[in-house]
């Protein structure tokens, strides 16, 4: 019963790793609150959330095994 978390760019710098697993949390909002408690610097950083590679703009239900990615503003090209 876990979630896989992926981080990129400056978010990886803040969290100190780019992929890790955490115990299952019911929805994205609670997940983000948990992470922000552990890494308060996230409050000062812009990012969006993708669940299983799809960007979500509102709180959504999570299922065990979901891959949740924290994506800072893109700067490719």
């Amino acid at each position, binding site marked *: 019963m876990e979630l896989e978390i992926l981080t990129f760019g400056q978010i990886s710098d803040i969290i100190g790793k780019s992929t890790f697993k955490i115990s299952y949390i019911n929805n994205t909002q609670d997940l983000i609150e948990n992470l922000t408690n552990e890494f308060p610097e996230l409050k000062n950083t812009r990012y969006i959330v993708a669940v299983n590679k799809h960007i979500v703009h509102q709180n959504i239900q999570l299922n065990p095994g979901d891959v949740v990615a924290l994506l800072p503003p893109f700067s490719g*090209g």
Partner: protein
Amino acid sequence: MSEKKVKKVFVDGPISAQFIADSISKHSTKKEIGAHSIFLGQIRNDVIDNKEVAAIEYTSYEEMANEKFYEIREEAFSLYSLTCMHIYHSLGLVKTGEISLFVFTSSVHRDDAIKACEYIVNRIKKEAPVWGKEIFDNNEYIWKKSEV
């Protein structure tokens, strides 16, 4: 995704002029083509807080990016009358003066190739989950600001 023919977009390191030339050459057998439009992104030596950028190191959420490139590709083909389309983006280290993005569209008449190329570049900049770490000549870095 099983039915989708996903073309490889990411390449390791810079995109060479020779690679671009080979890409162009391959189209000489497609004799219905009348126009090619090419966009190249090159790494600038921007100066930020008195430090000069020496390179950009690109990382990506590759799985998600490949789906996004596929979607952009399909939508460009549906919006414009194109004969061919190719997208290449660097991952890893690309130094100033080197090329990190290569978008190549071909069509019978010029308008489609030109408009599609611009459309694809804009969507990549806005929607592809790719990040550039600007590395200064003193080895410090900052995360590149989006250019959307």
